[in-house]
């Protein structure tokens, strides 16, 4: 249990998001653009489909020997002079990092964008011991200044207008009257953050991959903040979920060929940084100390659990962009660190199935996410599994469980089904308008509040079939 409990219900969060016109437009533009770029990138890349299969196979193969690969990784990181730490919970991960910060006398930490450190809520913990955390990805920097949370895995501030950013920078950075021009604002951020990079004692990153055979941590960024964070401060701490390990450099080449295409439609992100331990003797730049924190936080339990496949995830965000639900409500409405279809699964993994009793239903199960996923994670299948689990563990409210149980029984028995259809035809009569059921009374009104329902047909297919012969 690592995340703060969200207080407002999903329905309310979603409604608020739906009423936010700017958010709606921004989401639409962003996701439409990402979808087009991704399609174009794979269109130009005939071997893409085969590489996706290979990438999936590599993830599965790695999981099947996860202990051995992690052992190799640990041995190789230590061989090149790095330290490896093992964190069972988010709390333990924070404790490990805080200890490193204290021991090295750190005052300021620069952070390269990392979902893993978001997941363990590291920033608050650093602040509490007097270490100033500075997010350096421009999007993350914006939302840190605004005291918000990321709304998209790879574009954390897509919910903000340039006007809002200009206002925010003017106020927080004491630079009044900034123009609402991305070029100007980016330049300001460069100046502010360049100072921080040069001052910081601690560089904290996630890891897109870790290559076991060589003990190499791989970071992918477009801005160069990953390079700054791993080059300038005297201590580098990388935090990664255990599932990020891959066996070899040959495997890495496969993932690099599909990751950026899936995320932003680039053939490769601008910077791919391979870091192997601390700086070597003779190197002018690079940290004196390198630490790798291997994070469990619910992942290990899923090796044999129903969410196993979500351990393949590369955090590219492709499933968010194509999801009809995400595209309407955006990332914040999900209420946890990881939004979108994969986010529901990861939230369940980190916080238990009870945390997604509503979220598990925030999907039309259309399958677009599984199609877009570079490693073909069957997200809909696991969402259904989660719904079943939520039902079995009696997490869902009882009327819902009773209704659906009855519905399941009816569907499973031909006699009941025919009877049900006949009763339904009679009962629905007062509610059918122009061939649709648009409003139902009391409890059932929940369903028709935001959508209509096709009525039971006047004659069932079976009846028509009988008449035909």
């Amino acid at each position, binding site marked *: 249990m690592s995340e703060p409990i969200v207080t407002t219900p999903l329905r309310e969060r979603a409604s608020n998001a739906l009423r936010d016109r700017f958010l709606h437009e921004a989401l639409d533009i962003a996701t439409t653009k990402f979808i087009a770029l991704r399609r174009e990138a794979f269109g130009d890349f005939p071997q893409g489909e085969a590489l996706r299969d290979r990438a999936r196979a590599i993830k599965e193969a790695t999981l099947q020997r996860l202990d051995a690969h992690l052992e190799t990784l640990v041995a190789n990181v230590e061989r090149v002079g790095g330290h490896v730490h093992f964190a069972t919970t988010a709390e333990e991960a924070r404790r490990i990092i805080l200890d490193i910060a204290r*021991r090295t006398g750190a005052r300021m930490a620069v952070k390269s964008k990392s979902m893993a450190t978001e997941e363990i809520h590291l920033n608050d913990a650093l602040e509490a011991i007097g270490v100033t955390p500075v997010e350096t990805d421009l999007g993350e920097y914006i939302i840190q200044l605004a005291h918000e949370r990321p709304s998209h895995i790879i574009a954390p501030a897509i919910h903000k207008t340039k006007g809002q950013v200009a206002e925010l920078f003017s106020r927080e950075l004491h630079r009044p009257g900034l123009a609402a021009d991305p070029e100007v604002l980016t330049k300001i951020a460069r100046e502010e953050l360049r100072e921080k990079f040069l001052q910081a004692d601690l560089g904290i990153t996630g890891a897109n991959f870790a290559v076991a055979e060589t003990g190499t941590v791989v970071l992918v960024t477009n801005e160069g903040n990953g390079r700054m964070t791993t080059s300038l401060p005297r201590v580098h701490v990388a935090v990664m979920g255990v599932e990020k390990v891959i066996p070899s450099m*040959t495997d890495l080449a496969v993932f690099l060929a599909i990751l950026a295409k899936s995320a932003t439609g680039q053939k490769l992100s601008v910077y791919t940084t391979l870091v192997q331990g601390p700086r070597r*003797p003779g190197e002018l730049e690079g940290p004196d100390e390198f630490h790798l924190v291997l994070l469990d936080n619910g992942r290990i339990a899923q090796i044999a659990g129903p969410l196993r496949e979500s351990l393949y995830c590369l955090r590219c965000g492709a499933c968010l962009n194509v999801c009809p639900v995400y595209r309407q409500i955006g990332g914040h409405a999900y209420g946890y660190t990881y939004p979108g279809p994969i986010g529901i699964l990861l939230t369940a993994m980190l916080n238990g199935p009870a945390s997604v009793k509503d979220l598990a239903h925030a999907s039309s199960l259309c399958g677009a996410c599984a199609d877009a996923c570079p490693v073909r994670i069957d997200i809909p299948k696991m969402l259904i599994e989660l719904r079943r689990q939520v039902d079995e563990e009696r997490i869902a409210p009882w009327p819902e469980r009773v209704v659906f149980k009855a519905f399941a029984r009816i569907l499973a028995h031909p006699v009941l089904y025919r009877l049900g259809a006949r009763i339904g035809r009679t009962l629905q009569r007062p509610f059918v308008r122009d061939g649709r059921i648009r409003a139902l009374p009391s409890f059932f009104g929940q369903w028709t509040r935001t959508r209509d329902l096709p009525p039971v047909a006047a004659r069932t297919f079976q009846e028509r079939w009988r008449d035909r012969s």
Partner: protein
Amino acid sequence: MTVHRLASDGGAPAPRRPAARTTKAEFLARIRGEMAKTRGLFPASPAERPTQPRQRLDLLRRELSERCPQTLARFRSEFERVAGVFHRVASASDVPAELERICHERAARRLIAWPAEELGVAIAPALSAAGIAVESMPHDRPPDAERRRLRALIAEADLGVTGADLAVAETGTLVLVSAAGRPRTTSLLPPCHVAVFDRTALVESLEQVGLVLEAWHDGPAPPERGAAINFITGPSRTADIELTLTRGVHGPKEIHAIFVDGGLGLHG
């Protein structure tokens, strides 16, 4: 169980109870425990690694040299697609003049560079004569005061000149291995980065990069090798404000690649 805590630098012991730390053995044991419970897994294997990567790489290099013109053309078009500026000169001795032109267009006065042995061409004499200050990076790690001076210099430089270990045609990517004399910041802190390379750096695809990386890590690393390998595909960019593409957010705003037809090398 309680594990030894790292010694604190700050004299007095911290007023906290020593808390249990997960050990490697416990962590891996839990993973093995879960792995033992898995059922019905389908057979899967990671990518097949080359058994003798160095030999395979030698073979590949010979093949590549035959396709060099096409590979260079592809590199150029991909590099330009990601907003890189491509230059081509006949021989190593033309490199300083090309650099001078780039400096003049940008009114760049302060230049940092890998030393001549690492670049494969001496640029300092000609550029200094033209009034451009060139600071070559040292070959070993100097004392802290000198390091601070150098970092300030790198941070203020107008232009950083490096070599490139690989130029990847499929993606327009330059790959730079850090080492003594090749600090990672040379290609990162200045607003403009210029890389000098020749045909020996050219590869066609990311798949081939995989082979090169295998070969580089086959056997013990040479002692002068650094800890960072950077893939650079165009100038630093972001689209974090309203998806507007903006260059030079943290890294260089501009990237140039100078291809030397006659090859680099101080004695070649």
